Every structure is written in C-alpha cells, then in structure tokens.
C-alpha cells in the first residue's frame, strides 16, 4: 500500500479490532446501500417497482441496525446504532466504494444492486455458520431477504439486457462503468488474518461471484468486462470517493445540528 494513495493505513489488527472492522464492513455496506436505494422512493419507473425498491431499502437498513446494535455492544463507551450511523465521518466508514456511487438511472442502480446482492448472497450464506453467534443469527435471518434481492436485481439486468436496443446499450454501459468498483469486494484484508476462518474471507467468494455474474450477463445477452482489469480500492480502509461526503452530510444533518436531542 506504500507509494500510492492508500499510504499510511493500518495493516495489523488485534482480534478485537478486527472484529469491529468486520462488523463495520457489513453494517456500513448495508446502511449506505439502503440510504442510496431509498432515494428512489416516488421516482421508480412504475409504482410496483417503487414498492419493490423501498422494500429492499427497508431490508438493508433493518440489517444495518442489527449489525450496528451488536457493534455498539462491542464498542461500549455509550455507542449506539445511531451514534455509529450519525456521528462518524467519511474516513471512519468502511463500506465498499461501489455502494457510494450515484444512483444514476434505473439501469445503473440495478447493476450496482446486482453486483453487491450477488456478493452478499454468497457472503451471508457462509456467515450462517460463523462462530460469532450474533452474526450467524443475523446472517440466517438476512439470507432469505438477500436471496430475493439478488433474484430481483438479476431479473432486471436480464430484462434490460434482453429488452430493447436502447435498454441493452444503457445497461451495458452501466456494467462497464461500475465494473472497476467490483474488484474491491474480493480483496484480502489484513483483518481476516486476525479472525477465525468462520468469518468469511471476502477473497474466497470471487470465483463463485464471477461464475454467477457471467451466467446472468450471458442470459441478458450482455458482455462481461475483464475481471482482471485495474480495480479501484480504498473503502474498507476508510479512503472514499467524494460521493460519500454528500451522502453523510445529508443523512447526518439533523442529529448533528441538535446533538443533545433524542428522536
């Protein structure tokens, strides 16, 4: 990591620190994606899809709450789900950069969801057997929702890819544009080395993910970009794109304006 823009990042973690980081990976992914999807409310292409996307946003934020509640217990010092969501700044967030990318049009949002939902499906399926009982419980509860989400977003990729010429072109472009943010999902972080192997090492999910994505894109008559092309990274280390600053500024504005208030 030396000699590039990720210089100076922590590379060794105690077991305790690693556990907190791992919860942040999962919780921040869920919160940021839920927050982004909630922006579609009242803007969907058809009423039924407005309802579907709000539902997905609800699932993500619901999962973020469960994860933050547990993280707050581990953190102690008066931390709560809300202090974690509302009183951390961008460099303390650990979400993947993919999730903070703008909603764009329906195709952009659907592709972003498809990439992360497919990742989440394999991740949470594995985490059901995690030695951490709370995390295993959350995974058990979430995996059904995630299976539905992964199906929903894959179906939309297929529909747009194999729909009209216009939709095919648009969604291919979404895939090409978002592709460089996918590699980060499968990096092997030092955090994994300090944890029991039942905390899934994200890098082990890459093969399954590529197989599934390739299959869906083929059905959608779309081209899969090269998985070995140059990928962006930084989110898991707290190095983010400019988008996250705006997402947080908006999300956190009220509690930060009235820090003594309870809502």
């Amino acid at each position, binding site marked *: 990591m030396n000699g590039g823009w990720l210089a100076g990042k922590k590379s060794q973690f105690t077991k305790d620190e690693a556990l907190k980081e791992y919860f942040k990976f999962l919780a921040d992914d869920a919160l940021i994606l839920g927050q982004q999807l909630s922006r579609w409310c009242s803007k969907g292409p058809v009423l039924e899809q407005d*309802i579907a996307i709000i539902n997905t946003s609800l699932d993500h934020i619901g999962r973020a709450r469960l994860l933050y509640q547990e993280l707050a217990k581990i953190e102690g010092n008066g931390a709560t789900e809300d202090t974690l969501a509302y009183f951390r700044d961008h460099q303390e967030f650990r979400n993947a950069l993919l999730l903070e990318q703008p909603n764009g049009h329906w195709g952009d949002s659907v592709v972003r969801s498809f990439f992360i939902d497919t990742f989440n499906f394999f991740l949470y399926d594995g985490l059901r057997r995690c030695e951490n009982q709370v995390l295993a419980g959350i995974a058990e509860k979430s995996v059904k929702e995630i299976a539905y989400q992964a199906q929903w977003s894959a179906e939309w990729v297929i529909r747009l890819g194999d729909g009209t010429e216009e939709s095919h072109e648009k969604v291919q472009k979404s895939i090409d544009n978002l592709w460089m943010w996918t590699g980060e999902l499968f990096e092997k972080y030092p955090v994994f080395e300090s944890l029991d192997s039942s905390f899934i090492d994200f890098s082990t999910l890459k093969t399954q993910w590529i197989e599934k994505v390739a299959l869906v894109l083929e059905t959608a008559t779309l081209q899969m970009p090269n998985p070995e092309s140059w990928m962006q990274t930084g989110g898991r280390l707290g190095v983010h794109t400019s988008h996250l600053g705006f997402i947080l500024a908006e999300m956190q504005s009220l509690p930060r304006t009235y820090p003594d208030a309870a809502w």
Partner: protein
Amino acid sequence: MGTNVSLEDNFQTYVDGENKVEPKDWMPEKYRKTLIRQISQHAHSEIIGMQPEANWITRAPSLRAKLILLAKVQDEAGHGLYLYSAAETLGESREKMISDLQSGKAKYSSIFNYPTPSWADMGTIGWLVDGAAIQNQVMLTRTSYGPYARAMVKICKEESFHQRQGYEVVMKLAQGTPEQKAMAQESLNRWWWPSLMMFGPSDDESPNSAQSMKWKIKRKSNDTLRQEFVDKTVPQVEYLGLTVPDSDLKWNEARGHYDFGIINWDEFYAVIQGNGPCNKERIAHHVEAHEEGAWVREAANAFAQKQAQRKKNTGAAA
C-alpha cells in the same frame, strides 16, 4: 326513458337497503363517474402524498425513524396501487388515470401542495393529515360501492397505525429539548388550518355532496366530519402542551362541541386551482419520474413479449 327511470329507482332502493354495488351490477352513469373521480383522486393523493414524506427519508434523524418512515411511504404506494385497481373495476385504465393526473384534469388532496421543510412535519402529517384522512375513510368503509368499501377497510387499519406513529414523532419533539418543542409548534401552526381544509368546502358550498349522500357514496357531510376531527384533535394538542393556532377556538358547552375560527377559503381555492407552494413541483416530479422510466417500461414490455414468443415456440416444437 321510462325504463331508465325505473332502473335508477331500483338502484336507489337497492342502495337504500344498505346493499353493496358490485362491478358487474347496473349503475347510473353518473354514479360510475362520481366514483371514478373520487377513487382515482384518492389514489393520486396517496401517490403524490409520497413526495413530501420521501423528502425526509434520507434525513430521518435515527435509523428507527428512517425505517418507520420508509415503511409508511411504502404503505402509501401500496394504497395507491390498491385504489387504482378499485377504480379499474369501473372501467377506467391506470394509464388514463395517470395521464389525467399529469395533465391536471384529475385532482389530488390539496394538502400535499404544502412543503415539508421540517422533520416535525413527518410527525404532524401522520397525526393531523392522516388523522383527517381517517375521519373520512372510516366513513368510506361503509360506502355503497363494494370494492371501494373493502379497499377502505384494509387502508384504514394501516392509516390508524400511521397516525399513532405520527403522534409519537410529535410527542418526542414536544417532550424534547426547547428547540424540538418549538419545532413541533412551528409545524402545527403550518398544518392545522390546511388539515381542516381537507374536509372540503362548507356543506352549503359543496355542489356534489347531496347526490353522493343520496347514493351513500358519502355518508357524513364535510362540516360534520370537520367538527368531529376538531373535537377529537384539540385534546391531543393540549396533552402535548402545544397550542392550536386559532384564537377563536373554545369549548361550547351548549353544543357539546368546540367552536372554531373561519377557514381562509381564499387560500383553499387558490391551492386547489394550482397556486399552492408546491402544485407545480409535485406534478413536475411525477412527470419527470414517469418520463425517465419510459425506456425501462418499454424494455420490460419488450422482454415479456420475447419471453411469451419463446414459450410459444417451445410449445409448438413439443
């Protein structure tokens, strides 16, 4: 002509006997038209009503509040869908209703032409606006058109829940810091009178009401519903330690009701005629989402057609 009169008489007798009218029954054309107008207007209100609340989803001050608000707006989208379906049983297509909404031909509840600059508005809307809507909708669970009455039973249950949630938001503010309490009062000041306007013009100014009452589409007059709402809500305001922004408000022992001041009818009609602070914004938002979604709907249709064709081809081959 004679036959027509007799059909209408039979219809009136049927409705007078508290029987429900179903989609395939004969009904006067004006009854059908009135219902299409009323149900689609109700559906549009649910859909346009998503906007002032969606405005706060990304800024809800706690994760719990964010979840509750999301779920509420999702319910509203569901109600819209349900009501569009009820109107479709009368022979009106959803495309037609949406195009009437966007052209300004169809109306929606005027209350949603007011803005929501404050988080407190998320509480006040649930408490007062949904509260006023419930007053109307409880009556509609007994309306003479079957599909509408049944839709209302389901919708009322969820609306009551929203009203409790709204009240909870306001209560937290009213019992919170001085800034929060001021926030709640400021919001109440803006929403109190528009909420009373939701019941529509006074009975002597309400041209469609008499016929609707006769057909039992409507079962209580605008003024009766408004009075019930005031009587029910004033004690809630007092419980919160807030003040109703009406210097003429006082309990009338002889009537057994609250007396209240005069609604600003000029504002009421101005907003209905398109001159509220958000009329243009609400429709523009709806039109924009609809237009931006056009290529997505086309793709979904094209894909569905291809799938149907493939299925047919496979079927023919087998």
